[in-house]
């Protein structure tokens, strides 16, 4: 990183999160670090993202991209009206997205509210499809800390392999970075299982509320230094949703974090990605900005619900050469 503050920080960092202690030990050092990150010019970032969006992905590359995108989907249902039946149907869809085609890969995960984790765990069994749970008083995050931690622990105890947490945007915008940081650290701790393993933590930055790309970059670094395994744009079920430039900036952050620490962090855009065309733009951005290494469901996910069906329609078109229709994919 270019700034001297960052150089110092990165220079003293080994390969594990604990060595960020110099930076994260106080509000002021954390502020110095985050504000020492290079700025993001909004117009330039938008232009770059738009240019990446003009890549034309055809034929074999498209077939490859479609399967990869399906494998990256966190098939999500986050509604007040969710029921065990709904979750079971979603799980079935996740395991076998296209019942007519056994070559179609499964999605990465099913993402549900914590109370429905047991249903999802049971339905998915040993299929390899992970159960992800949104926790920490999702989506607003406005609850007491012990409530958020209890929410997290319950989801992990019920078998969630992945926890999607929301940061305290109010605290972030008020400049209380230490508070945000410590909260992530505490949730990460709550992700720990009795056997010493840990559920993967996805930190939702709620980038729409952060308002500027500079804040997105800072929040990304804050989440990474606090121990997040993934950084995620937005809750996914509420607007504003993910955008390509925001995701690009987060991809730059994980790329730079990796260069600085050797640690590799995942990225998950969520919400608003509905078409194959969109998904492919994201994949191109992942590949060209972060690098081919991130073209992996362990490091990049789409938080989405309707995207999957469009991917399936396109996949059928690739296989048969004719355009498919909504009656030929399942509604779940």
């Amino acid at each position: 990183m270019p700034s001297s503050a960052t150089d110092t920080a990165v220079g003293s960092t080994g390969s594990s999160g604990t060595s960020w202690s110099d930076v994260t030990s106080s509000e002021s050092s954390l502020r110095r670090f985050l504000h020492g990150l290079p700025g993001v010019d909004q117009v330039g970032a938008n232009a770059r993202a738009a240019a990446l969006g003009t890549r034309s992905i055809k034929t074999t590359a498209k077939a490859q991209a479609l399967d990869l995108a399906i494998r990256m989907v966190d098939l999500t249902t986050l509604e007040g009206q969710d029921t065990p039946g709904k979750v079971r149907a979603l799980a079935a869809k996740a395991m076998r997205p296209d019942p007519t085609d056994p070559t179609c890969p499964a999605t990465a995960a099913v993402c549900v509210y914590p109370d429905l984790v047991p249903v999802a765990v049971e339905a998915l069994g040993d299929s390899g499809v992970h159960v992800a749970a949104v926790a920490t008083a999702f989506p607003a995050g406005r609850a007491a800390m012990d409530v958020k931690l209890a929410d997290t622990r319950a989801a992990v105890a019920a078998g969630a392999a992945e926890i999607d947490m929301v940061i305290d945007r109010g605290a972030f915008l008020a400049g209380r970075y230490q508070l945000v940081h410590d909260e992530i650290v505490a949730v990460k701790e709550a992700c720990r299982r009795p056997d010493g393993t840990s559920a993967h933590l996805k930190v939702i930055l709620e980038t729409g509320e952060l308002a500027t790309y500079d804040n997105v970059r800072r929040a990304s670094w804050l989440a990474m230094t606090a121990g997040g395994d993934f950084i995620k744009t937005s809750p996914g079920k509420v607007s504003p949703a993910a955008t390509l430039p925001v995701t690009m900036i987060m991809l730059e952050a994980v790329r730079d974090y990796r260069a600085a620490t050797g640690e590799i962090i995942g990225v998950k855009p969520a919400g608003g990605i509905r078409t194959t065309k969109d998904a492919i733009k994201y994949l191109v951005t992942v590949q060209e900005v972060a690098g081919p290494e991130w073209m992996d469901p362990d490091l990049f996910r789409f938080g989405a619900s309707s995207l999957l069906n469009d991917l399936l329609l396109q996949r059928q078109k690739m296989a048969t050469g004719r355009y498919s229709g909504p009656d030929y994919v399942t509604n779940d």
Partner: protein
Amino acid sequence: MQLEYAPAPESRGVVDLKPSYGLFVDGEFVDGHGTSFKTLNPASEEVLAEVAEASDADVDAAVKAARRAHSRTWGRMPGAERAKYLFRIARIIQERSRELAVLESLDNGKPIKEARDVDVPQVAANFFYFAGWADKLEHAGHGTESIGVAGQVIPWNFPLLMLAWKVAPALACGNTVVLKPAETTPLTALLFAEICQQADLPPGVVNVVTGAGATGQAVVSHPDVDKVAFTGSTEVGKAIARAVAGTDKRLTLELGGKAANIVFEDAPIDQAVEGLVTGIFFNQGHVCCAGSRLLVQESVADEVLERLRRRMSTLRVGDPLDKNTDVGAINSAEQLARIRELSAAGEAEGAERWSPACDLPERGYWFAPTVFTGVSQAHRIAREEIFGPVLSVLTFRTPDEAVDKANNTPYGLSAGVWTEKGSRILQMAGALRAGVVWANTFNQFDPTSPFGGYKESGYGREGGRHGLAAYLKGGE
């Protein structure tokens, strides 16, 4: 996993290439009386067409046609009517935009992505912009009286866009035009002539005479040409300035450059790297205002270069008609030889050369994106315009040193500065002796925005209200 981009070629079917092309004089395509020449696709060395060379007599006929059109129709026509012709041309350009883009890419070697998304939309925008001026000249501050016949000689790097920069303001102001496109890229100008026919533009208002240097010379030195506009090399620009000396001809010149792109330690680093890439690899670096010198603050030099190299590794070099191509073909064997010569000089003088791994096609004219580090002001690659995808990297320590180095060139066309500090931007923008300063951006163009150089980068401005001055008697 690496996503292998499959070839995504744009179809050539939209272009109807004729085996041979004549000149466009007085509203008709006519045979030339010089020695016809071939225009190549620089990406494959395939002959695209045979093109007529205008002899002195052909140029004379074109000037006479332009003079007639000026005195009989175009020069007398109410501005509002001229405007409607230009609007009509702009619309036809939009309608035929894909055809123009493909033809430009074929003849020039530039990526279809750029021809499609930059050149052609800008061409239409220029005609739209200047169309609107035609009946509002009294508000522009240069009078309303046209100069007469404009002889315009344009380069091969943006064939159609440079045509638009010259033809649109000339016509809006009531002048008529004899245009000489570059020898290696005449085809889109001839397609533009066809568009003039479709628009029912009166005969003689636009004349296109193809050929090489001799034809250009005939145009600029023709005694009945009132106004000369040239975009091209500084060397030829000086020759033209000498040729018009002692005459009443008005002259504007848009010439070479060796722009500094200055990156401070507090720059928005990812956008700066993007700006460096756009600055020197856009259009294969065949850009007079290219950011061919990177001046990077020493404290961030290593980091910026590392990011630049990583970014350069994602550039896709190859078939210009592939929609995913970022860097296309070098326009001609001659230009390729020049780039190679200067790059060899860079190595010989001790600079360190680097290019990303990329497979260049066997046929055609290609040069991998290249960056030279360890360059000093005395090196040829820091002083001479390479006009290719070659970046020379120098470092500086203080803002004054950056300004000194940036200005230490006979050129003065453009400059870039990258810093998040507002007051520094404004100070730098003032101190840089260049006609266009891009701060936290690079290579932006717009019909409303004047473009042109200081010092040996030429004189006069193209674009904007100021661009009218070159084509009106009161614009001196």
